[in-house]
């Protein structure tokens, strides 16, 4: 509850501030392109929460949902750029090439592409969140709460983003419980409740009593609730879907970034950037910690959260070994962003191979 109060207080402050600013700023219109429906309670839902923050800050917004990453994306982008939008947020990796292509044709429109790496024109920025920091928290909780020492992990696609998450999670879990094993099931989907539930079931059948996920639906936490094991919410606070199973969630909090960038467009201070924000900048938020967790674990998590935010603790601090025992990060060192961005090897303690 207290967190809600703080959040509302902060957002009303932000609102107050922006109302004063918006009064002098010119009319800026922002557009958002979504991969899924706004009601997915995962990835797209959270982007739409961010869009609403932009509306609350006094700007006009438009969104188009369910835009496939096929040839259609380019048409939607061009239409948005053509119809008076000043800044367009494209919120899925697959929009990378269409975003850069359309950006070339509309140099006066700003483009913000989530999770990509191409910034071919000065009017294209990219942004992503350090979700792996959130997974360090989840790993700590999972390693403490497991009794079977088997932790299940439903993964989507073998890309660095997902491998990084698995590694960060496993490293944190090992730190509190050296005996744990992380079992992975690759669902090869970002959003497919049926497949995700099946994957979770397979992991539970193999003895996993805590399930983590890197897919977007609520099917996994609901399956965990039914089976009486623990789970973590993904992208949004999924507690209400499985109140007993969900220990906490890692929320994607895009609002502050979106408001910031739209304001920059309004003030004429927008510049090309590559943003990668974590817990410290508030892009990654940890939901309320469930009361089933022992009090000392909760305070430990709170401290870890503060340390990750301040930079005192880094998710990838050496010594880190890969599955074969080769040193990946030396003692006392931390992995740099280049290594994190291209991470394609499991750390020790993860079972199985990365699908190739």
């Amino acid at each position, binding site marked *: 509850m207290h967190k809600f109060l703080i959040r509302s207080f902060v957002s009303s402050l932000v609102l107050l501030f922006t109302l004063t600013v918006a009064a002098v700023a010119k009319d800026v219109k922002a557009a958002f392109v979504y991969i899924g429906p706004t009601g997915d309670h995962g990835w797209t839902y959270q982007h739409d929460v961010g869009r609403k923050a932009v509306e609350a800050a006094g700007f006009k917004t438009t969104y188009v949902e369910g835009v*496939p*990453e096929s040839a*259609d994306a380019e*048409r939607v982008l061009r*239409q948005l750029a053509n119809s008076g939008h000043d800044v367009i947020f494209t919120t899925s990796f*697959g929009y990378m*090439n269409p975003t850069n292509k359309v950006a070339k044709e509309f140099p006066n429109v700003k483009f913000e592409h989530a999770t990509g790496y191409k910034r071919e024109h000065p009017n294209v920025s990219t942004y992503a969140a350090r979700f792996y920091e959130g997974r360090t928290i989840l790993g700590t909780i999972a390693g403490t709460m497991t009794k079977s020492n088997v932790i299940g992990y439903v993964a989507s*696609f073998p*890309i660095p983003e997902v491998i990084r998450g698995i590694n960060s999670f496993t490293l944190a879990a090992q730190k509190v419980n050296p005996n744990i094993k992380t079992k992975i099931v690759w669902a090869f989907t970002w959003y497919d409740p049926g497949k995700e539930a099946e994957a979770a079931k397979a992991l539970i059948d193999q003895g996993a009593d805590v399930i983590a996920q890197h897919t977007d639906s609520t099917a996994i936490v609901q399956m965990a609730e039914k089976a009486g094991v623990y789970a973590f919410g993904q992208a949004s606070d999924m507690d209400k879907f499985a109140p007993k199973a969900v220990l906490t969630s890692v929320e994607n909090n895009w609002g502050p970034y979106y408001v910031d960038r739209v304001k920059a467009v309004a003030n004429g201070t927008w510049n090309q950037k590559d943003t990668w924000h974590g817990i410290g900048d508030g892009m990654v938020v940890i939901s309320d910690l469930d009361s089933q967790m022992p009090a000392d674990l909760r305070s430990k998590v709170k401290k870890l959260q503060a340390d990750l935010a301040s930079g005192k603790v880094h998710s990838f601090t050496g010594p880190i070994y890969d599955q074969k025992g080769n040193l990946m990060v030396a003692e006392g060192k931390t992995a740099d962003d280049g290594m994190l961005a291209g991470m394609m090897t499991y750390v020790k303690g993860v079972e199985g191979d990365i699908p190739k």
Partner: protein
Amino acid sequence: MIKIVKRDQPSKAIFFFTPVLAIFLTLVAGGLIFFILGFKPFEALKFFFIIPIADKYGFSELLLKATPLCLIAIGLSFCFKSNNWNIGAEGQLTFGAIVSGGVALLFYEQEGFYILPIVILAGAIGGMLYASIPAILKTYFNTNEILVSLMLVYVSKLILDYLVVGPWSNPEGFNFPETRQFSDSAKLPLLFEGLRIHAGIFLALAAVVISWFVFYKTYLGFQMKVSGFSLKTAKYAGYKGKKMIILVFLISGACAGLAGVGEITGPIGQLHREISPDYGFTAIIVAFLGRLHPVGIIFASLVVAITYLGAETAQIFMQIPKYTGQVFQGMILFFLLASDYLLFFKIKFIGSKK
């Protein structure tokens, strides 16, 4: 009093009239839905069906969208006319795209006039290979082609996933699931500067002409028609049923494969996980709306294509949920099937009897 009477013969006039009726009823029902959702129905319909194609760019996008739908639906009409229920065009499209994309990647950073024809041919062959699986299983093992072709769709998508995640992923692409961009020689030429409409439209038009010729001017077309009406008659007439089944599947697969080629060597320019927003399934609606007639399919593909564009425009300008486009596609098929009732029955108004 109203009485419903069975017709002696299905009415030919009604046969071509019902698609128009279905579209009309869809518009009425669509307007009603908009009204219930709290939007002005006429304004919404305008944003859905007129605004998106009101300028040259919009019209070119309509043709771009209709091209794969038309091509696949033409191919499917060969199957459907002869009682072969190929539901897996989406898989044949995907596999055609995989084969043609693989060839295009072989020619990475190479130039040459010969590259594009090889890439196109590879796509057609890929689609044919994939369509031959349900065809052969049906002819020699009596399997149900609906199930086999449908299930193979998911298999093809998994193969594509595997390739773009693993062996074919862009070496400079940070392991994201996509291949390199094809070289210009492996891409279909654009027809106009600044528009995305590409030479693939000629493939669709050629398919229309060829299919018309085969359906109405050849013995094969006649055989297909007879088999469509009655398999027993076809057998009695001594037609080589197995050969024909395989042939129509191959034609259908080639068309779907070419549609895949058009997408990846046209507007997309690479392989990734989502090369088609289910064109292979939507084309089934197109084929039936066009009454399996080549000219009908042209019109039907334009009508269905506009539901995609309209849904985007309506969301951008009126905040109508984009998924309404799918509702429209569903309604068209629903009303078409419902009005087919009129084919076999007529409504008679007779004076009240006492």
